[in-house]
């Protein structure tokens, strides 16, 4: 009897101490869905790899450091959304109601993120969207949803800035784009921006998805245009770039969507040289604490080189894509806000995110806080890559814009 009593006391003490230790080590639960199956699997996997790397790094450092010196561990809970919009709302509701997630990260793609954002707002949970660039999500009056990517409306406007920097006298552009929502959104914003800059949009025409023969469009490009811009997705844009080269279109710049940042674009050989394309992030980006200091903005988190090393250590040869970088950056947005607010309460963290303005390896992060566009990414700029001839004469991808990320100077097409 005495032995049993002693055992019970010992057990009680052990459990009590363990409980006390657990109470001292706070934690948060981050919920998300991942398209582990379905058409978005590749991009979503990269995104989750980036997020998981962030979780690992934070926990390795003891957790998110609070102002009082304590640390908050990060735990995650996720489900496979099967790349299916219908599954997303059901699963996010489950993450909030049953799993009691404190914060949310969006699934990959604008469509899925849009569906998830509605649930986040409805259940009063902060959601950081990544892998989603549609502006429209942020025009619905949400107050708890924040965007990591540069919005689609700014995909090609920077390319126009590059053109005007290289040739301030440039006045005329031609826009040829795929007739889908994403590309149309992008070029309609580009058209507005060009007109703001007093430029003439000499041609503005869309082509159907699956178009293979661009000769009818190329033949219509007016003589003397300073830039040809537009495109759509990988297959059509690659063909368009090739035919522009073969038809020897005389223009100072070709800036196209989606395809140029892909390594496979280099297979075009000579035809890819000088083509510019927007990307959310590139491993060649040269964001640095020094560049941040020059702009008087705080630097936060690992440098580009450190991120690349951490990623390589965890995932081997797989080079991080902008999806991976976006996943990591989404985690950092939450981490910084929790650190700054010293709280895990939604309202306190929300106020801290609203105030965020920082440079990271992913670029600048700052949010729009006006009621109409709350949460829209204002700080992050697209990186513009350009294919230039490397030392061995083969195409080499370099970052040319913005200056804070550039690894080489941009060049005009006619000087190639």
């Amino acid at each position, binding site marked *: 009897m005495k032995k049993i009593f002693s055992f019970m006391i010992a057990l009680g003490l052990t459990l009590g101490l363990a409980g006390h230790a657990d109470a001292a080590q706070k934690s948060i639960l981050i919920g998300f869905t991942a398209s582990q199956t379905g058409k978005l699997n590749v991009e979503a996997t990269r995104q989750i790899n980036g997020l998981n790397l962030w979780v690992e790094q934070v926990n390795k450092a003891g957790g998110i450091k609070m102002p009082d010196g304590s640390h908050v561990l990060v735990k995650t809970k996720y489900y496979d959304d099967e790349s299916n919009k219908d599954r997303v709302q059901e699963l996010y509701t489950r993450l909030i109601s049953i799993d009691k997630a404190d914060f949310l990260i969006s699934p990959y793609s604008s469509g899925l993120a849009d569906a998830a954002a509605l649930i986040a707002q409805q259940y009063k949970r902060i959601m950081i969207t990544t892998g989603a660039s549609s502006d429209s999500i942020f025009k619905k009056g949400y107050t708890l949803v924040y965007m990591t990517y540069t919005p689609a409306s700014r995909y090609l406007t920077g390319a126009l800035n590059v053109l005007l920097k290289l040739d301030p006298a440039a006045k005329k552009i031609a826009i040829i784009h795929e007739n889908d929502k994403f590309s149309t959104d992008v070029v309609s914003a580009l058209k507005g921006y060009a007109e703001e800059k007093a430029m003439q949009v000499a041609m503005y025409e869309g082509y159907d998805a699956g178009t293979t023969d661009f000769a009818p469009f190329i033949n219509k490009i007016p003589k003397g245009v300073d830039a040809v811009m537009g495109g759509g997705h*990988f*297959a059509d844009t690659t063909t368009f770039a090739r035919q522009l080269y073969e038809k020897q279109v005389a223009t100072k710049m070709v800036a196209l969507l989606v395809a140029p940042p892909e390594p496979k674009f280099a297979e075009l050989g000579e035809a890819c040289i000088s083509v510019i394309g927007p990307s959310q992030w590139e491993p060649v980006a040269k964001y640095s604490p020094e560049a941040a200091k020059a702009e008087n903005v705080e630097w936060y988190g690992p440098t580009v080189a450190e991120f690349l090393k951490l990623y390589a250590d965890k995932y081997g040869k797989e080079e991080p894509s902008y999806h991976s970088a976006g996943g990591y950056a989404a985690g950092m947005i939450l981490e910084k806000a929790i650190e700054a607010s010293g709280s895990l309460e939604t309202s306190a963290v929300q106020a801290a995110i609203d105030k965020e303005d920082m440079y990271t390896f992913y670029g600048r992060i700052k949010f729009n806080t006006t009621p109409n566009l709350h949460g829209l990414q204002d700080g992050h700029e697209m990186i513009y890559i350009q294919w230039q001839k490397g030392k061995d004469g083969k195409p080499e991808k370099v970052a040319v814009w913005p200056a804070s990320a550039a690894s080489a100077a941009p060049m005009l097409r006619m000087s190639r």
Partner: protein
Amino acid sequence: MFSHLSASLVDGLLIGFVYGIAAMGLSLIWGVMRVVNLAHGATMALGMFFIYYLFSGAGMNPYLALPLAALLAMAFGFIVYVVALHRVIQAGYLYTLLATFAVNMIIIGIGTTVFTTSPRNVDFSLGSVTLGGEILQGTRLVAAAASVTITGALYLFLYFTRTGKAIRAVSNNRAAAELMGISSARVLALSFGIGTMLAAVAGSLTATFFPFTILSGSTYQLKSFVICVLGGLGNPLGALLGGLILGALEGIVPVFMPVSWVPVVEFGLFVAVLVIRPSGLMGAK
């Protein structure tokens, strides 16, 4: 405006030659066998993939791979004829239509599994040449030249060889040809083989300048039907003429209106020909 028009017309005509070759295969099979070959587009896609793998896998020049593609396609045509068509050739249009549709579905199904539907691109360029102020893509010029050569060879074969004359005889009157000692089964198999070969060659040439998937053939098959109706179903030379008309329309129409109007004009013409001259421009009245 004139420079746009001439550039677009030339580009359209160059493509039109390749359209003509594709339609010629369909037209020959119809003319000789009275079979509407719904596997025509899928065969074109197989030709595209054949060139793609020989070029990107074995590094072979696409034009050197072309004769190989033609030979294999002809053998493939024989096999399809023996397996899917021979037993139903006498049973009427509906049966042969369903048989070729089944072959089409089998090719698409296997092709989707093996190749997926990701777009492929034969990254082969011959650069451009400037002729009379117009910049012409080398691959399109070679494709047009190859199409003209193939059309000439087919014409010589059909009109000046014993086998060619046998094909024309079977096309005119199968029963009479058999009475003259011509084996119609062999002629039908050969015709299907040649038609399939033309489809694969057209696909191979197209792959040198346009990207494709295993599903791309359906677009060209539809164009081939329009061309056959324009030129006259069963008339290979009419098919070439129809191809040139369609190509020219695709070049000229976008100069005057948005490109999305091209199918409207094409199919408008298609309906007009059916109403005014159902036998086509070069078909028998």
